[in-house]
């Protein structure tokens, strides 16, 4: 990974030597894939810079322009300020939750970050807790990933306890293996002892979250960035990325070999550099299964930032970029993912419960060959009917994914209607979990 500095950024006053170097969060290139213990961590980043006051970090975060790295890109300082204000107004002590429940099957960046740099996330959790005056901190992660992240985190917490690094005790909590488990209201519902299903807002959890307290939920990567901004300042953070979307982010990139690569890249990086040289006939999926398919030629002209992607109907999201090999059928791949998304509906909102299975079934017909002529129109209509009508954005994201596939793979769908398919390999490419929820226990 070559370090890329922004052409837009040019403020010499805030220039810090070495600020443009990447990776910032992950261990440097030579360090291998070993997890960083507390000694290595302290040697690289220095001690935890507590502010001894609530709120002061929030100004730095605003100057840095850090946005949530869980996918929504919401300004971090605004969320912290909202929690702090709600805590003052309602005289309640807030709770801080680090969200590592990366449920998107195509993403692996949070698990990788927690595995390789747990102390950076835990530093961020402490500093966020201090900034809003919280006395409870929870780290919420999935259990069943490739590595035993839970064990790694327990070990990290023991190391920190031994030197007294943490002021707020940290509890670890496990997320059920559901797609929606990381949605913040589902997360609060789960931690309160209920099923991990989204609830209706308002009340927002920044006002009334876990046990009625104002609750701050931040993605683990966001907290890692926060821990570095607290140490090195906003100017350092802005030395990479663009003026409007500063900083770096972790991306999960899959090229034609299908293997996930987690890299830390500056926002605004050309997608062409991320993808290598994609075959012009193929397609690129940006943002995962709630994301957008784009023709590879179009994607290659864009950069990894919302200002560039949004006119094309895509968003940076959690940094998932997947290049579909030319020998696979995009409709088949999409059908598999849509079936998974339908099965992961929480089953509580009518449009999602009724609409997603219909869309999955229709998409399976489109992928299976010889679809009826009205199937595409049905999909388009249902996508419109489910959008904006759930407690969470699951139907919206699924509809966006389906619609982008109908546009990007329109020529392939024509072929399917004539009974042909251009794919030469039937091996599934997109990673799809095999298990789905059957009983209420699967949600808790």
């Amino acid at each position, binding site marked *: 990974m070559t370090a890329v500095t922004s052409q837009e950024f040019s403020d010499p006053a805030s220039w810090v030597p070495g600020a443009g170097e990447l990776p910032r969060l992950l261990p440097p290139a030579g360090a291998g894939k070993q997890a960083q213990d507390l000694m290595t961590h302290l040697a690289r980043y220095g001690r935890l810079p507590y502010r001894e006051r609530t709120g002061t970090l929030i100004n730095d975060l605003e100057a840095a322009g850090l946005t949530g790295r869980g996918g929504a890109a919401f300004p971090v300082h605004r969320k912290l300020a909202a929690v702090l204000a709600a805590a003052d107004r309602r005289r309640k002590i807030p709770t801080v939750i680090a969200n590592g429940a990366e449920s998107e099957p195509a993403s692996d960046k949070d698990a990788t970050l927690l595995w390789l740099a747990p102390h950076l996330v835990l530093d961020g959790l402490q500093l966020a807790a201090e900034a809003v005056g919280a006395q409870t901190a929870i780290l919420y992660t999935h259990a069943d990933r490739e590595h035993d992240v839970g064990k790694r985190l327990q070990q990290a917490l023991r190391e920190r306890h031994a030197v007294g690094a943490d002021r707020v005790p940290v509890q670890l909590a496990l997320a059920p293996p559901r797609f929606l488990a990381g949605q913040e209201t589902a997360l609060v519902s789960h931690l309160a002892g209920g*099923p991990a*299903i989204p609830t209706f807002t308002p009340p927002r959890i920044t006002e009334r979250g876990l046990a009625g307290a104002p609750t701050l939920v931040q993605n683990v990567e966001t907290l890692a960035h926060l821990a570095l901004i607290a140490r090195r300042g906003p100017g350092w953070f802005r030395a990479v990325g663009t003026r409007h979307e500063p900083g770096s982010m972790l991306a999960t990139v899959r090229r034609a070999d299908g293997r996930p690569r987690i890299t830390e890249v500056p926002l605004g990086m050309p997608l062409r550099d991320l993808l290598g040289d994609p075959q012009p006939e193929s397609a690129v999926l940006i943002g995962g299964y709630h994301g957008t398919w784009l023709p590879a030629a179009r994607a290659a002209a864009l950069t990894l930032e919302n200002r560039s992607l949004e006119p094309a109907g895509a968003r940076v999201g959690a940094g998932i970029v997947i290049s579909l090999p030319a020998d696979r059928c995009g409709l088949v791949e999409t059908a598999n993912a849509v079936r998974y998304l*339908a*099965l*992961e*509906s*929480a*089953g*509580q909102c*009518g449009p999602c*419960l*009724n609409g*997603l*299975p*219909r869309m*999955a*079934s*229709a998409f399976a*017909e489109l992928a299976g060959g010889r679809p*009826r002529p009205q199937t595409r129109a049905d999909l388009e209509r249902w996508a419109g009917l489910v959008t904006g009508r759930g407690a969470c954005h699951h139907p919206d994201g699924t509809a966006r994914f389906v619609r982008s596939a109908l546009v990007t793979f329109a020529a392939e769908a024509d072929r399917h209607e004539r009974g042909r398919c251009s794919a030469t390999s039937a091996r599934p490419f997109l990673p799809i979990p095999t298990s*789905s*929820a*059957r*009983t*209420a226990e*699967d*949600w808790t």
Partner: protein
Amino acid sequence: MWYASRGTGVVALLLLTAVMLLGLLVTRQGRLPGLPRFAVGGLHRNLSLLAAVFVVIHVLTAVLDGYVNIPITAAVVPLASSYERFWLGLGAVSLDLMLAVIVTSLLRRHLSRRTWRAVHLLAYLSWPVAWFHSVFSSGDLRHGALFILAICCAIAVVGGVLWRLAAAARDVPRAERVGLEMSAVKKQREGTIR
């Protein structure tokens, strides 16, 4: 005025019956022929306010009329009237319950869903009390066409409640709904393709 009171009382009973049935339909997100789903909720709300107007006229005319002496307090305080003490008392109980339901619904925006619902369930108590008040406080509904009407109202509401309970018993647990829906859609589609 005595006749106005009796007339509005009968109309109020009919309207309250309709409101009950619509409320039962709303809880199951049911539909009426020719109406979109959201309109059922709107109809429930508007009819209930109309019923409240009739109840108010019914009570005021009964109090103001000099034919029997009913003190104004008897409208809300049970057993405060010497005339038909018990049956008018039921009317007062029913009206109090109704007021609680209406006030909490108007303030719903400021209440938690649980509080609102707990109070709203009082409607199931208010209606039968109102029915007994209607049938027993005067002789009008105890014979003839109005008696049949009162019985029909009772049958309709009891039937509605039974339908509501049966529908709840058929409910699929949330976690199993998606799987069921997936297999249902799949079967349906296979049916249409062949």
